[in-house]
């Protein structure tokens, strides 16, 4: 097993790195979870999928976590690191997402954006998977520290009592290198520095429209930690198929989730009016006129239907009021009750407005709580990585035959 190549953050370098078999994240200790989850979320953009898989790695450690005294800390760290990795993908997406706001068809642009990291991460995952398949026999316990460079199989359930912290370190650094890959793969503007990632990830800025389809249970359900090899090929196949951006949008099992914004609706209404009104317009005609990429006739059809029902009521009520002729007395009576009604409406509005304010506060709190948790997870993971990196350096030194280059590479990995 050759020494780990330099994390030189050039694209070819990254590919090479991943081809070395960054199998840590997809370790043999992956429990049942991966495959069913893959089935569950097969059509998620790859970045999500990658992060889900990383997340899955952390699950085995849940079992480990019960056993040692600091276990809860360990477990939590891992959960956080998964959240961390998930978020990194989104942080790398966020500038793109900001652009996407301007497009009326939001789900489409987020799909396109999400496809950007896909090719690279899928590339790395594929090679990872294949490399990993050769390695599954290695037991984590013996290999862990000394063969760190070999990215040993993780079998935390076995060694849960021991070295949970080193397991920690290994996995965390696996995460880190994967993350580093991701950074390389993404747009340079996005991947510049940690500060950007840390400061810039604002949850409310991110609007990927994740289709979260319901899964049928996977045939590999019985697979446990040692059966990952069977799962992995499926993984890489899965990724291969979703790597194509257009297939991503079309392959979601649930119907594509289209969000009608006011702007999009305005375009729709214009098209309908051009075609002679809601009754005369056909979905096909409207679709053609609107010329919005990614809009399907199915979307237009259902929207047109809703539009027609919405128009029917107001038109009928307007028609009836036209025919009414009210004498003066009735008019003054109307005014009086009009006042009452207006007052009642005003009261109702007050209550509704108050509710809305409270809701805004509550929602902001909810977001803040999640944000803080995510941040805590981040901090943990970073601390983790530093410890992990230091441990790695020590290991290399302990091996005795380390050259400075290797040591430097590991150290460099810590300080992007």
């Amino acid at each position: 097993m050759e020494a780990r190549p330099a994390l030189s953050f050039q694209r070819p370098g990254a590919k090479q790195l991943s081809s070395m078999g960054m199998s840590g994240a997809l370790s043999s200790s992956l429990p049942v979870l991966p495959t069913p989850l893959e089935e569950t979320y097969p059509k998620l953009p790859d970045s999500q999928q990658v992060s889900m898989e990383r997340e899955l790695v952390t699950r085995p450690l849940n079992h480990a976590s019960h056993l040692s005294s600091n276990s809860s800390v360990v477990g939590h760290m891992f959960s956080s690191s998964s959240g961390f990795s998930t978020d990194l993908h989104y942080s790398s997406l966020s500038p793109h997402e900001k652009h996407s706001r301007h497009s009326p068809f939001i789900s489409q642009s987020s799909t396109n954006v999400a496809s950007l990291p896909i090719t690279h991460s899928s590339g790395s995952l594929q090679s990872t998977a294949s490399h990993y398949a050769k390695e599954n026999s290695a037991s984590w316990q013996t290999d862990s520290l000394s063969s760190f460079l070999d990215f040993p199989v993780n079998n935390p359930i076995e060694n849960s009592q021991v070295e949970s912290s080193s397991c920690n370190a290994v996995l965390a650094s696996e995460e880190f290198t994967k993350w580093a890959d991701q950074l390389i793969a993404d747009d340079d503007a996005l991947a510049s520095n940690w500060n950007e990632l840390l400061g810039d990830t604002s949850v409310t800025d991110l609007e990927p429209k994740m289709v979260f389809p319901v899964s049928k249970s996977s045939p590999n359900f019985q697979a446990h930690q040692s059966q990952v090899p069977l799962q992995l090929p499926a993984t890489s196949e899965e990724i291969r198929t979703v790597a194509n951006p257009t297939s991503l949008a079309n392959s979601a099992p649930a119907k594509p989730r289209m969000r009608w914004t006011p702007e999009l609706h305005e375009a729709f209404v214009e098209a309908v009016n051009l075609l002679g009104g809601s009754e005369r317009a056909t979905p096909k005609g409207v679709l053609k006129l609107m010329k919005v990429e990614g809009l399907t006739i199915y979307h237009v059809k259902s929207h047109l239907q809703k539009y027609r029902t919405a128009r029917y009521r107001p038109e009928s009520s307007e028609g009836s009021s036209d025919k009414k002729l009210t004498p003066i007395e009735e008019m003054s009576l109307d005014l009086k009750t009009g006042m009452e009604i207006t007052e009642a409406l005003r009261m109702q509005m007050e209550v509704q407005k108050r509710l809305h304010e409270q809701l805004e506060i509550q929602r902001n709190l909810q977001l803040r709580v999640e944000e803080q948790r995510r941040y805590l997870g981040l901090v943990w993971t970073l601390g983790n990585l530093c410890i992990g990196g230091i441990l790695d350096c020590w290991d290399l030194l302990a091996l005795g035959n380390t050259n400075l280059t290797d040591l430097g590479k590991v150290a460099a990995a810590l300080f992007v």
Partner: protein
Amino acid sequence: MKFGKEFKTHLEETLPEWRDKFLCYKHLKKLLKHFPNPTPDFNLHQNYHHDDDDDNNNNNNNINSMDGLNNHLPTLVDLQEWFIKILNEELEKFNDFYVDKEEEFVIRFQELKERIERLKEKSSKGGVFTSESEFSEEMMEIRKDFVTIHGEMVLLKNYSSLNFAGLVKILKKYEKRTGGLLRLPFAQLAVRQPFFTTEHITRLVHECEANLELLFPLEAEIIESNPSTQDQSNPPPCNATKNLSETSSTLGGETVYLYRSTHAAMRAIQALQKASSTSNPLSFSAFLRNQDEEGTGVVTAENSAANSSASLPNDEEDDQYDSHSV
């Protein structure tokens, strides 16, 4: 416990057709009760078995070791996977409903705006007398519809927020029960779901409020004639009670539901903001307490400029609502 009760109460009083679109909080809680409560022994037992299996089957006979494991109780991992599946279905439910409603609101709102335009055109052309009463009638209709759509949109936001809160609670319970770490990743996922990205609806709500400002020209007169309604603190508890019944009788039919649901939502939120039974530095109540102490820049009901009557302290409002049974 408390959340469950609040949630249930809210469900009973909210719009009827929305009731089954909420999170199945009670059922999920019950489900969790049946999950095995892992003790250290339980896990150790499993682990040692794994050790044995793996020692014996070195390389690729993973399937065999698998079968061995299958003879044990369903593992935590199996249950977790199943639980996640259920939660995903819930998310789908939320998303479907939310996006559907959002689309409906966009259509209706745009319709209302068009109606105003048409009315303006008609009134500028038509004669004074007949068109005046028609005008005012139509105007009243439009006002009513605006208020209704505003109310429904706000309730949709409430739907989003309440479901999210319920989801987080369930995740916490899951963690407590099984030790599986689901809360952070799943919550992160939920935050990004369509049902929780409510920015569009918020925009519509604000636009609605702006429109209504214009549509209520009489408001100024009414304010002048009834200065007492604008005063804060203690009179409102009585007035609000009276106004509820008055308003609902005046406005009739479907608005009664809306009004009731709105109040139910208010109550639910306030209940959430009260201190929970488990102390948690990340809970709402802790946040709110901190805000009161530190005076951060967060907009609270207290310092919001939009509504003078919103300056009621939460406790008072809560008492008021508790005493009033809808």
